[in-house]
């Protein structure tokens, strides 16, 4: 089945280039958007399998668009394709529901592979993202926060994330820890899911506390 894709990026040179690369590799590029508002609107209409999201979108952040799209369109997955320096934005986007992150400097082959994996529902977990997720769990454990106790990594999950962050492939990790390839994927998936769930709970709590939940209706 052909995977349908939407590309969100405010730079025409890059956007058109990625659109062409993906079309050449058999993807159905349904739409492109240059800003967050248009991205949310158009995604609701064309309902792509995968949204490739840049985070640096001028005024509005791609994080906001990622949150709306993953909330309103459960069938659509968001893959962040962003510059390497935007660490905190990437982390926020992943917490908001993005299922993976690829740097813009990745090769076409890596990009094609990542879009396929995202469409299949697998996380795209680069070493860079693993480092950030590890750091985020540590930050939450260190910072005394009000409300919901922060999620924790199991020992196994920490081991797996650490190996991903050190550049080992899923197969190498499976070999080293003597577990199956699928189990490695599940551990990785679970670290993300816990983070996203916690983020949703925290946002909801914040909204209720500040009376924002009524405004949205």
């Amino acid at each position, binding site marked *: 089945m052909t995977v349908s894709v939407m590309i969100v990026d405010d730079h025409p040179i890059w956007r058109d280039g990625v659109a062409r690369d993906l079309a050449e590799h058999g993807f159905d590029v349904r739409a492109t958007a240059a800003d967050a508002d248009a991205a949310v609107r158009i995604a609701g209409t064309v309902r792509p399998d995968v949204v490739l999201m840049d985070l640096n979108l001028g005024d509005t952040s791609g994080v906001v668009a990622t949150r709306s799209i993953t909330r309103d369109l459960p069938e659509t997955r968001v893959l962040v394709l962003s510059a390497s*320096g935007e660490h905190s934005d*990437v982390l926020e986007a992943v917490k908001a529901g993005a299922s993976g992150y690829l740097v813009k400097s990745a090769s076409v082959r890596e990009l094609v592979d990542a879009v396929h994996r995202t469409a299949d529902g697998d996380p795209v977990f680069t070493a860079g993202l693993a480092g950030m997720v590890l750091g985020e769990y540590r930050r939450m454990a260190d910072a005394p926060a009000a409300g919901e106790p922060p999620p924790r990594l199991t020992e196994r999950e920490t081991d797996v994330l650490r190996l991903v962050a050190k550049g080992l492939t899923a197969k190498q990790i499976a070999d080293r820890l003597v577990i199956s390839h699928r189990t490695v994927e599940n551990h990785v998936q679970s670290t993300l899911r816990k983070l996203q769930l916690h983020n949703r709970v925290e946002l909801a709590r914040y909204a209720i506390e500040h009376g924002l939940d009524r405004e949205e209706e």
Partner: protein
Amino acid sequence: MSTSPALRDPATPLWWGTIVLRWVTLAFALGALLVYRSGYDRPGLAWAAFGVMAAWSLVTTLTFARESLRLRSLVVADVVVTCGVMLTSQQVLSDQQFAETAPLVTTVWASVAPLTAGARFGAVGGVLAGLVMAVCTGLARLEFDLDVARDGVLLTASGLLIGITATTARRSQATLAQAMRTEAATAERERLARSIHDSVLQVLARVRRRGAELGGEAAELARLAGEQEIALRALVSTEPSGPAGGDADLRAALQLLATPSVQVSGPAGDVRLPATVVTELVAVAKEALSNVERHAGPAAKAWVLLEDVVLTIRDDGPGIPPGRLEAAEAEGHLGVAMSIRGRVNDLGGTSTLETAPGAGTEWELRVPRPRQRRRGSR
């Protein structure tokens, strides 16, 4: 930009205070002269001394009002002139007046010199001038009793306080100026980063992607474009370094080591450590990476991971055969491994090297956590 406050001496109000005080005390000295002149041994000399005081008040007013003329030599001269005038009291006052503890010729006018010295040289200068003035008071009266001691304490204390105030004002101003410079540099960097992101980086990224597909010479150009793209991205996303002796963000500093074959990972927020530790750890990481480049072959990739205060540098090269490092050490080659170990030890940290043929090498460097560690939340 308007005139930067960094260019003005923050102690200027203190200088104006001393100028005003000098004229007020001069009037006081005139009053004392009129009251006591009938009892003086040498009223003529008293008038002459007063003339010198008035002239010197005028000189210091004209000079100390201007920042560029607040010369060290003039401030020293102020102390000398004040002492000189004060010592004429020996000839001017009669024995009876000394016995009645009548005021010296300079009266409270003498208290201004320690203040200017404090404003110019800080606490130490103020105290020294105060002490000199106290000794002169004693010499002028040719006795050191409780009154002289009290004057000495007051003169020294006022010099000390003004000195502390001037130094504090200058320090706060220096801090403020540094903060303003950092802010200006950050704003400028953000502007540059936006503009580079919007133009150069987009084109470089495109050249790299398309060139890699075309192959041949174009692929080589693409590779070069890719290197520059990564370097430029890292450069514009790094914060300017703070004042020396402060702390710095190790995360951002490591990011500069990223190349197409070196992936740098770490927390999304800052990792604040003392600037010296950051500099040293980055140097160690560089050393490990250059070793990878030398020994692991051109196709080898490397990963740098920063986790709290643990830094890992791994490569997927051929690894080091067992005994190789020990052999080198035994032959007296202080190789890279020794150098890395030594540098981390000097930071009070520990290092481990894991390697096996075919399994690459992995350095794990652990440094002590600073006690009052500040963590960037984002």
